[in-house]
């Protein structure tokens, strides 16, 4: 058994923390696990992506094309961009708040709203404005943990492990908000 989780977003959205949390959860649950984060510039605004592979014996941290089980996207255009990596019945968990790239801002391209909407025809898409929901909880930064909560519901790992690992990985002052964010995601259907 191998579960392939793809992650995608925009530089600065906190993708590295997400992969770290998922990896630690998998280790605690007794699986082999490997991950990948985008390598490169640390500043914001560019596309970022990563992988987590969970299973009995994982060799490569890279997911072979077309073998992704889940795509957790922090931005709709990035969900579209990486969707080819998914299996036929793959699941997309996506934050619906767009972050407009330079070429859209400078009016050279249209943001592909339609193509993003069409993803629903090919994949199971779980869409949430995690950004707004995060703000409601208290901080837009917790939006990632909402997405993690949705993912957790799909994986066969006890939610208690997720709660412990999230608590371990966030600053003291944000523990309550992140716990609330996880529950919101976990109970989002």
């Amino acid at each position: 058994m191998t579960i392939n989780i793809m992650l995608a977003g925009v530089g600065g959205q906190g993708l590295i923390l997400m992969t770290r949390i998922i990896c630690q959860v998998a280790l605690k649950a007794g699986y082999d696990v490997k991950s990948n984060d985008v390598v490169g510039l640390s500043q914001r605004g560019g596309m970022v992506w990563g992988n987590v592979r969970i299973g009995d014996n994982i060799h490569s941290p890279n997911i072979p094309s077309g073998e992704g089980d889940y795509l957790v996207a922090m931005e709709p255009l990035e969900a579209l961009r990486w969707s080819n990596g998914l299996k036929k019945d793959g699941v997309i968990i996506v934050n619906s708040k767009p972050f407009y790239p330079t070429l859209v801002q400078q009016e050279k391209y249209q943001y592909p709203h339609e193509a993003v909407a069409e993803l629903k025809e090919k994949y199971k898409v779980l869409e949430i404005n995690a950004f707004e929901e995060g703000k409601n909880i208290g901080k837009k930064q917790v939006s990632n943990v909402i997405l993690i909560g949705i993912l957790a519901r799909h994986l066969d790992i006890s939610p208690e492990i997720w709660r412990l690992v999230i608590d371990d990985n966030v600053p003291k002052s944000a523990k309550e908000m992140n716990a609330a964010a996880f529950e919101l995601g976990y109970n989002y259907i």
Partner: protein
Amino acid sequence: MEEKRILTGNEAIARGFYEAGGKIATSYPGSPTVEVIEKLKQYDEVYSEFAINEKVALEVAIGGSFYGALSMAVMKHVGVNIAADPLMTFTETPVNGGFLLVSGDDPGLASSQNEQDNRFYGRFANMGILDPSDSQEAKDFTSLGLSLSQELSIPMLLRITSRLCHSRSIVNLKERQEVMPKGINKDKDKFCMIPSNSRSMQSFMKERLQLLEERAYHMEINRLEELEGADTLIITSGIAYQNLKELKPKASIWKLGLVFPISEKKAKAITKGYKSVIVIEEMLPFIENELKLMGIACEGKRYFSYTGELNIEDIEAGLYEAGLLKEKKNNISKMVETVPRAPLFCTGCPHRPTFDILKKSKAKVVIGDIGCYSLAALFPFEQSNSIISMGASMGMIKGVRKAMSLEAADEPLVAVIGDGTFFHSGITGMINLLHQLKAEENITIVILDNRTTAMTGGQPNASSGIYNFNEDMRVGIKPLLEAIGFNRIKEINQYDYKAAAGIFKEEIDYRGLSIIIANGPCALKYNMEKPHYYVDPKICISCRSCIKTNCPPLRMIKYEGIDKLKSSIDKDMCVGCSVCAQVCPVNAIKSSRELKEANDSDN
């Protein structure tokens, strides 16, 4: 103690150094190896630092080793170029305290200006080379490299690639083993590298490598995985091994942990049993060349690219071409072709106004340098005619100016350099500007001082202590330049757009050498968070002056009841730097602070 952790390659190197009893670890921040030193900071038993540049970092580590302490220098691949001078001579001497150089290579150039394969440096400098394939090996090879170095008196290179630096996998932790430094070796003939002494070290280096090669014959990290009935042998190392394993090829695999020197005796004994030998390695043919020099028939780069990463799909395609796979299934692209998303200056970045001003200025030639401001090369600013290497802009602008002077061409020239790069290696080029300086030669140097080494995640540099109480170096750029002998230095606040634009105009017009120190704290590192700005669409004339600054929250949108698209600001992203408001010709952009005050007074 048997504890399992999930670590990145970088974290694993730090842990391996700690466990091995390492004492002195140095670096200059460069992707992909930045986190090694950051992770070592947690261990009181280790002295670690980000030095001013890679050469100094290496020299500090050499000093540690000279005292007999286990020492390590960590840098990105191009950093080794800066450090190559001490490296090439240090590696002539015996190793008093085990020494490891960690080179973060970058196949595919995720965050680098070139793709050099530093295994060639290891060979060039007569070092042994270890090449890990996951975090466990990154940790184990760090310890092994230090102990081999200590035992055989040979400097070792741990070559790791960007993918592995940032990839996480499970690692078994061990306790630290204390290793007492031996103290300074007083055999001066072996450590003072003057010609008469260095001559005799040439054969010493060769003998040392021979000892390591003999050791390689039995090393468990060079592992043969035999497949019954296979007539093909694949020789590989690093991440390529892990990617290969996903494909379950019908071949035996010889996985090398030590890629230089390769035991010739072992290589010949193993390859003899196979009809064909295929080498899979990222970047240049290194293992392949070594084998061919031994007279072993093999193929590698015939099937696999010499550039970029070798992902599962690439290896599959190569093996298919080599006839080892009957079909290739992974030939679809993971990416959908859609709107590209290039990185851009952060919201509130102090560099944004500077490049907006430069774009509108008379200067048509801008020599760029390495740092966040390299992004100015991209659309929509496109304000760099050249970017070569750390600090190169300072030497280059002089050469351009002198060549133009010979032609009597006098158009203005501008070079931009950040504070970190200035201290790293820009300062020498700057001093050199004073040599044979002619009064009429128009050169404008812009030093972008954002008070941190921003691109690699906000590490301190030599002037950070002026702004950060907990940093210890407080070298002021302006007093330093004045002491050197520059006499036309202007300071600007990058967020004061109008005043800054005025000074830029004056200095670019000035026929002579002038320096602008452009101040503004990195918005990310120093957490800029001021009240957001907003656009009044009734005032906005759709001129797009604000949009051209490329600040992420800005966008032209359709407002209800207004035909033309008007500018807008995403208030959740805006950090209140005010630059868009300052470039707006009609004052359509206002601070929410004023809005709030107005509302308060209404009530």
